[in-house]
C-alpha cells in the first residue's frame, strides 16, 4: 500500500500540513480508524481516526471528558472498541487485553496509578514480566537502579509504594515502562504530579525515544509542555477528533480555541483586594505525622479576607498538613489557629473537628488534593455528593433531598460538567469533571475561608481558567482563599501573596505582583531563600 494523500494507515505516507505542503515522510506505527466507544449512554469516542507515527511525539489534547483516556485505553487493551479498526504497522489487529497490547509493543502510563501499594517499587516493576529463571528481585533492583542512574530518576527500588509521595509513584510508573521497553509509548497526564525538574528529565527521555524511532503519545493539559515537547497535536472534542496541528505552527491560544470550540481568553486577572482584614491567624503551628515525622515546624502567618494567599513548595513539604490542620482534620502538636470573624470575634480552631468548626459558624470550605479519596464519595451520584455538606441541615431525622439535587443541577449547568445526568456516580466522570463537582460544591456553601489544594490538577486549560475565575469571584466576595498550587506561573499570576514552605517551615512570604519566579523557586528548596531580593518578607 503506497498511496498519496493522507493517513491511509499503513506504510510510509505523505502528510499534509495546513498550508497543503508535503511535510515529512513518516511511517504510521498505529492507525485508528472509525473508533467508537460508548459507556451506557455516554459516547466517549465517536468515529475517531488517528495516526501515530514512528519517530514522533504526538500530543493528544482535549477538554476533560473529551475521550482522550478512553481512546488510548483502547490501544493499551483496557477497553475494547464498539466499532472501528486498529492497525499496527499497517496490519489490522485486535487488541483484546493489555497482554496483547504489550505484545504489540504498546506501553502505557495510565492517568491513575497502576501500582500495588504493598509491593516495593521493584516488585511493581517486574510484575507480569515473563523472564527466564526464578524470581530474582536483587537483580531486578540493580537493573532498576541502572535505569534510574541512566536517566537521572530517583527511585528507591526497595521502597514500598504506600510510603511514596505521588511524584515518586509517578516516577515508578515511568521507570516501569522504561524497564519493560515499548515501541509505542502512551503517557496519560504523566506530569500532573511531577516537579518541573522531574518533568524535564522525563521529556529528555521521551525525546531520546523519539530519536530511536519510537512512537510517543502524550496526553497533557499543560500547553507549554505541548509546545516544548511535541511535534504534532491531535485535538479531541466531545469524543471526536476534530483535527490536528503541527506544534511549530500553532500556539496555546489556537489550541485552546480548537479544544473548546470557541474563542476563549487565556489570562488570569488579579483584582485588587477590597477588604484585607485578617481572617485566619496561625501562630507557631507544629504538626507531626502518624509515623512521628515533624511535618510543620513553627508555622506562622495570617490569611486575610478578600485575598488569595498562595502556598508554594515542593510536594510533601507540609502543604497537605497545613490545610488539613486548618480544616480540623489533623492532630496538632502545638500552636494556634485563630479564626477572626467580620465583627472581630475570635475562635480558636485547634481541637475542633470539621463538624464543630461548622457549628461555631465558621464557614470553611476545603478542596482536598485527593478528590475521590477525601472530598467525594466515588460511588455516590452527584446529588448525593452535594449532600455531603448539607445533609445535617434541618432538625428532622431525615435528610432533605431536594436542595442538593437542585444544587447538583445548577453546578452541572454553571461549570459545564459533562455527565449524562445528576444520577451518575462521580466515579464514572472524567478526572476534570470530578474536580468541578467538588469545587462547585465547596464554593456553593458560601464560605468565608476557602482552602484549596491543587485545584486545577488534571483540569483542562479552559476549566482551569474557569476555576481561577471562581476563586477570584470568591476573593471579591471577601473570602480568604488559600491556594496551594504547583505551577509557579499560575501562583504568581493569581495570588496576592505567596507563602513559601520548605520542609515544613515557612521560608518566606512574598507579594504576588512583585515576586519573581526564580526567587520563589529558590525559597522552595532552601530555607529563608538565602539571597532573596524580590518581594518583601512579612511577619
Amino acid at each position, binding site marked *: 500500500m503506497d498511496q498519496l494523500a493522507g493517513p491511509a494507515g499503513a506504510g510510509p505516507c505523505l502528510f499534509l500540513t495546513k498550508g497543503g505542503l508535503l511535510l515529512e515522510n513518516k511511517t504510521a506505527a498505529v492507525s485508528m*480508524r472509525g473508533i467508537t466507544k460508548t459507556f*451506557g449512554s455516554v459516547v466517549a469516542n465517536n468515529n475517531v481516526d488517528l495516526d501515530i507515527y514512528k519517530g514522533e511525539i504526538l500530543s493528544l489534547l482535549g477538554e476533560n471528558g473529551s475521550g482522550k483516556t478512553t481512546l488510548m485505553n483502547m490501544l493499551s487493551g483496557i477497553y475494547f472498541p464498539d466499532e472501528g479498526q486498529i492497525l499496527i504497522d499497517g496490519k489490522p489487529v*485486535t487488541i*483484546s487485553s493489555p497482554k496483547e497490547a504489550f505484545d504489540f509493543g504498546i506501553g502505557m502510563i495510565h492517568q491513575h496509578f497502576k501500582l500495588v501499594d504493598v509491593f516495593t517499587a521493584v516488585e511493581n516493576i517486574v510484575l507480569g514480566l515473563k523472564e527466564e529463571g526464578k524470581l530474582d528481585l536483587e537483580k531486578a533492583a540493580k537493573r532498576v537502579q541502572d535505569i534510574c542512574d541512566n536517566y537521572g530518576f530517583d527511585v528507591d527500588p526497595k521502597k514500598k509504594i504506600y510510603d511514596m509521595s505521588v511524584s515518586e509513584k509517578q516516577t515508578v510508573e515511568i521507570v516501569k515502562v522504561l524497564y519493560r521497553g515499548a515501541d509505542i509509548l502512551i503517557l496519560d497526564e504523566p506530569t500532573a504530579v511531577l516537579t518541573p525538574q522531574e518533568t524535564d528529565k522525563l521529556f529528555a527521555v521521551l525525546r531520546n525515544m523519539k530519536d530511536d524511532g519510537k512512537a510517543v503519545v502524550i496526553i497533557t493539559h499543560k500547553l507549554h509542555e505541548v509546545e516544548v515537547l511535541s511535534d504534532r497535536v491531535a485535538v479531541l472534542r466531545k469524543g471526536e477528533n476534530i483535527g490536528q496541528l503541527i506544534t511549530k505552527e500553532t500556539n496555546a491560544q489556537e489550541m485552546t480555541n480548537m479544544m473548546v470550540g470557541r474563542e476563549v481568553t487565556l489570562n488570569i486577572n488579579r483584582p485588587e483586594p477590597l477588604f484585607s482584614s485578617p481572617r485566619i491567624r496561625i501562630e507557631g503551628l507544629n504538626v507531626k505525622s502518624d509515623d512521628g515525622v515533624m511535618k510543620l515546624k513553627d508555622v506562622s502567618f495570617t490569611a486575610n479576607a478578600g485575598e488569595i494567599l498562595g502556598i508554594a513548595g515542593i510536594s510533601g513539604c507540609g502543604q497537605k498538613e497545613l490545610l488539613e490542620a486548618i480544616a480540623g482534620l489533623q492532630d496538632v502538636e502545638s500552636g494556634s489557629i485563630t479564626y477572626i470573624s467580620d465583627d472581630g470575634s475570635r475562635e480558636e480552631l485547634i481541637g475542633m473537628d470539621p463538624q464543630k468548626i461548622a457549628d461555631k459558624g465558621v464557614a470553611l470550605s476545603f478542596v482536598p488534593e485527593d478528590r*475521590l479519596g477525601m472530598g467525594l*464519595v466515588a*460511588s455516590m451520584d452527584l446529588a448525593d455528593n452535594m449532600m455531603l455538606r448539607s445533609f445535617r441541615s434541618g432538625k428532622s431525622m431525615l435528610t432533605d433531598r431536594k436542595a442538593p439535587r437542585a444544587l447538583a443541577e445548577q453546578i452541572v449547568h454553571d461549570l459545564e460538567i459533562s455527565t449524562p445526568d445528576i444520577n451518575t456516580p462521580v466515579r464514572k466522570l472524567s478526572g476534570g469533571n470530578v474536580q468541578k463537582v467538588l469545587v462547585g460544591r465547596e464554593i456553593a456553601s458560601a464560605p468565608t475561608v476557602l482552602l484549596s489544594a491543587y485545584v486545577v490538577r488534571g483540569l483542562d486549560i479552559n476549566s482551569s481558567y474557569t476555576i481561577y475565575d471562581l476563586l477570584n469571584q470568591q476573593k471579591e466576595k471577601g473570602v480568604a482563599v488559600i491556594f496551594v498550587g504547583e505551577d509557579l506561573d499560575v501562583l504568581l499570576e493569581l495570588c496576592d501573596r505567596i507563602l513559601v514552605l520548605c520542609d515544613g517551615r515557612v521560608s518566606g512570604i512574598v507579594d504576588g505582583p512583585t515576586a519573581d519566579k526564580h526567587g520563589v523557586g529558590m525559597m522552595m528548596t532552601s530555607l529563608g531563600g538565602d539571597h532573596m531580593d524580590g518581594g518583601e518578607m512579612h511577619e
Partner: protein
Amino acid sequence: MNNKEPLIHITRRADIGWKKAWVIRGAAIITALIISAIAVTLATGLDPFSVYGKMFEGAFGSPRKMWILGKEIAFLLCVSLALTPAFKMKFWNLGGEGQILIGALVTSAIMIYVGESLPNGALIPLMFIAAAGAGAIWAGIPAFFKAKWNTNETLFTLMMNYVAIQLVAYYIIIWEVPKGSGKVGIINQDSLAGWMPDLAGQKYLFVILLVALMTIGIHVYLKYSKHGYELTVVGESRNTARYVGIKVDSVIIRTLLLSGGMCGIVGWMMVSSTDHTITTTLAGGRGFMGIMVSWLAQFNPVAMIFASLLLVFMQRGAAEISTAFQLNQSFGDIITGIILFFLIGSEFFINYRIHMRHKEKEGTENV
C-alpha cells in the same frame, strides 16, 4: 500474533430498567426449576411435578402452614434487616447468630429469675430492652475494636458467635430441667410469665406485624435518614466521612448497636413470643441465611421480603417433600443451592451485555 476478534465481548450495561431485570430473574428461576427437576428425576426417580406440588403444599398448603411460613419469613427478614446497615457500612457482621442467641439468653434469664416477681406488663418490655441491649453489646464489642484499632470484624464477629453459643450452653446447664438433661424446656409454661400474649388469637401475628414495621423503619432509615446517609459515606470512604465531620468511630459503633440490637430483638421474639425456651441452636443458622438474603436483595429491604420468602419457601418445601417422599431433607438444600446459583448468576445478564463476534468486516477503507 492474534488477529482474531474475541468471540464474545462484554460491556457494562446502562440501567436496564426494573421490568426487564425481573424478567431475567424470573427466567433464571424457571431455568433453575427445570434443572432441579431433572436432578430430582435423576437422583430419586420421582416425578418432579409432584415434588414441586408437594413443596408448594408444604409452604402454603393450609392456614397454619401460611402462618408458620409468615413467622419464619419474619424471623429471617428481621435478621437480614438487622445485618443490612452494617453491610452498607462495609462492616462484615457475620455475628448475627451470636447476637440473636445473646438476646435470647438475656430474655430467658429475665423470665427465669424475675418472671415470678414482675407482672407481664413490666416484664415483657424489660425483656425487650434487655435483649436489644445484649444484642447491641454483642455487636458493639467488635465494632468498638474496629473503630478504635481497625480490628478485623469478620473474624471477630464470627468468633463472637461461638462465644455466645458456649455461654448459652453454660447457662443451659445451670438452668436445665431436670438436672443433667442439657435442656431448659419451656420456661414458665404454667405461669406464662414473660410470654407475649397472642394477638387476635394468632400465635405469630405479633411477630409478623412487628417485623413488617421494622422493615418499613429500616427502609426509611437507610434511604432517607441522616444516619443512613452517614453510614453509607463511612462505608464508602472513611476519609471523606472525616472530611465532612462525620464521627466515623461513633457511626461504626452506633450502626452496630442498631444491627446487634435488632438481632437481639429476634432473640427476644423467639423466647418471648414463639419458642419460650433457649437452646444453642435457637438461631437456626439465620445469622448466615440473613447475610445471603441481604446481599441477594442488594440491601433493599423490600427485595429482602422476596428473598426471605424464597429461602423459607425452599426450607418448608424441602421439609414437606422429605415427609411425603421419605426424601433426605438435604435434597432441599441442593435445590436451594441450584436456584440460588441461577438467581445470582442472572445478575450478570442484568448488569452486562454480551456482544458476539461481528460479522466479517470489509477491508479497511482508504481515505
